[in-house]
Structure formats: structure tokens, C-alpha cells
């Protein structure tokens, strides 16, 4: 699969590295060349310093041949604009965008964008972790005992 990833922060670079190691053809865009240092040395994809909300830059990144586009920057507005360009101008078949603000996420989802909300996901996992913690017994260390899973067995 040929994938373009906009934004090479922690999330974008992690996704890029994962897809690259699984053999996909990955191109990463970022407006800051320093961001590419998040990528592992083994990364074999393409890095382009470009603004993903500009049609010329998207074309330069090869969006006309891409199978998928993912926007992962911290800016919701940049993300949804680039995603809508990929979807409506370049007819990329798989377009996914991060939207941090849950209200905007809901609206863009209803407009037909495939959205992922880190805010919602993180809040959900924090809640699950918290509730799981609650149902567990007190950690033994707090009572001054030896750590569990020692050599007794």
C-alpha cells in the first residue's frame, strides 16, 4: 500500500515506522525537517518537507498515486483540511485523520471523514485503567512487604 502521512511528530513517525517495517511504501510530510529525527534509522520511506494543506505539495508527495492518506498533526484544522483535499480533490480511497477536539471530530465524522480522536481514546483507556486498578487489591509494597513474584516459587 502506498501511504502518505502528514505530520512527523510522535504519532506520525510511529505510524510511519510501523507501516514501513511491514513493507508498505511510506511518504512522510512535515513542515519542519527536524521532525524527521523521530523516525528510526531503519526507516526506508520518503521524507518530504512540505505543507500538507497545499495541493502542489501534496502532488509533489505523490498523492495522485497514493492508496491512503493519514493526517496526524497537532492542529485539527490542518488535519481536516488536508484530509478533505485528499478525499475530494485527489480521490484517495482511504483517508483517515486525527481530530483532537471531540466536537469537531463528531462533526467531521458526520460529514463522511474517517476520524480518530486521541482525546476520546486516551480518556477511555485512562478510565479503564483506573477502574481496573480499583477492583484490584492494594499494592503490597505500600504495606511494606516484599515485592510479589519473588523467588518463593
Amino acid at each position, binding site marked *: 500500500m502506498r501511504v502518505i502521512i502528514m505530520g512527523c511528530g510522535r504519532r506520525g513517525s510511529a505510524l510511519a515506522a510501523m507501516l514501513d517495517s511491514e513493507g508498505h511504501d511510506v511518504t512522510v510530510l512535515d513542515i519542519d525537517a527536524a521532525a524527521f529525527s523521530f523516525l528510526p534509522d531503519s526507516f526506508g520511506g520518503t521524507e518530504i518537507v512540505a505543507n500538507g*494543506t*497545499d495541493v502542489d505539495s501534496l502532488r509533489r508527495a505523490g498523492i495522485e498515486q497514493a492508496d491512503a492518506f493519514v493526517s496526524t498533526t497537532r492542529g485539527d*484544522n490542518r488535519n*481536516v483540511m488536508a484530509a478533505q483535499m485528499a478525499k475530494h480533490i485527489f480521490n484517495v480511497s482511504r483517508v483517515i485523520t486525527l481530530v483532537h477536539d471531540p466536537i*469537531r471530530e463528531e*462533526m467531521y465524522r458526520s460529514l463522511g471523514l474517517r476520524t480518530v480522536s486521541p482525546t476520546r481514546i486516551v480518556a477511555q483507556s485512562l478510565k479503564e485503567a483506573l477502574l481496573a486498578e480499583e477492583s484490584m487489591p492494594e499494592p503490597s509494597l505500600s504495606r511494606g512487604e516484599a515485592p510479589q513474584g519473588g523467588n518463593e516459587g
Partner: protein
Amino acid sequence: MIVGGGKIGYFLARQLLEDQHEVLIVEQNAEKAAQIAEDMGEIVMIGDGCEAATMERAGMGRADMAIALTGDDEDNLVVCQVAKHKFNVPHTIARINNPKNERIFKMLGIDATISSTGVILAHIEQELPSHPMIPLMTLKGGGLEIVEVKIPPDAQVVGKPVKSILLPQKSLITLIIGADGQARLPTGDTLIQAGDEIVAVTMLDSEDALRSALTGMPAPQRY
């Protein structure tokens, strides 16, 4: 409702107030907001105009028109989309900085876009004979526009009657301005001459087809 209290927002608000409209400016920068309040009264709210919550507080649901004037195209797009889809604002207008963004804004249903870069570019193009087609005006609804095409001396249509030209669908030649500056209303038998400026109504997506039908030139590289 104006989002963005920079120079354009400031002078636009002043003009609109003079014309007796009810205006509210949403501006993020407290200093700018204070300046506006000092000059024009309590017509300004401090906040991020891209946040639905801010729009709610500002009363976006009652607005007849949302005008997004920030310096960032992506913010202007989102302001208009949220105003339109979440608050059912009937008219949305966006300032755009990159003229190539006009297309995506139109596709996404923003009612009007204003690009100062585009306006200056259009003026330059009007002075340059190398650009054979100039979009003059976009007509409301239906994706129609009025364009002007200059007939180059070597075009195939030179010396031929209007009725012999194979125009794209829903395109119509409405006026011919001769090289001498005389305008004539064309009939099917009117002959096209080199240097004629043809004013035509066409569909936005038939622009290129119309250009090549009249000039025989391929479309320039577009976005």
C-alpha cells in the same frame, strides 16, 4: 459574525456597523480585541473562533452570515464548515491566502471565497495576452461562471461561424468584443476573428474544454 479581528476584520466591521448591521468579532488576541472594543464598542469577544463552544457562546446560531478572516486558510475553512454544519448559518464567506485553495473551499460548500492574492493575480492576467482565458465572475448556484477568452491568430475557429464551434455542454457564447473594441451580439452565423474577445457562460468544470474548443490550446497545468 466575523472571526479574526486583524486589519480586514477591523475595517470590515466598521463599514458594516456604519451600514446598520449587527456585528460581532471573535478575536483570540486580547490586545487586538481591546483595541476593537475601544474604537467600536462592545462588539468583540475574546476566544478561539474555531471552537464550537466559542461559537455557541457568541451566538453563531443566530448569525445570518459567518465571515472567516484569519490569516490561516485551514482555520477559515473550519470556521465556515462548523458555522454551516453545526449552526446552520445560511451564508459563509472565507478569506483565502493560497489562491489554489479556492477549489477545495468551493467543493466543500463555502458560499464565497475572497483571495487578495487571486484578485491581484487576476488583474495581472488581464494585462497579459499570454493567458487566453480569464474567469470574470462565478454565478450563484449551479456551478456556472462567466469567462473571457481571447482568440489567438492561429486558432482553428478563426473565420468560422459560431454555429460550427463544438462547445462543451451548458456553455454559451454571449458576447464578442472585436479587436477594435466593438461589441457584437453573436448569432449562429457570426464569424470569429483573430483577436476577438469572447465572453461566454460555462460550467466551472467545462472551463478547460471551452478553452481548447475556442483557442485550440491545451489547458495550462492546473491544480
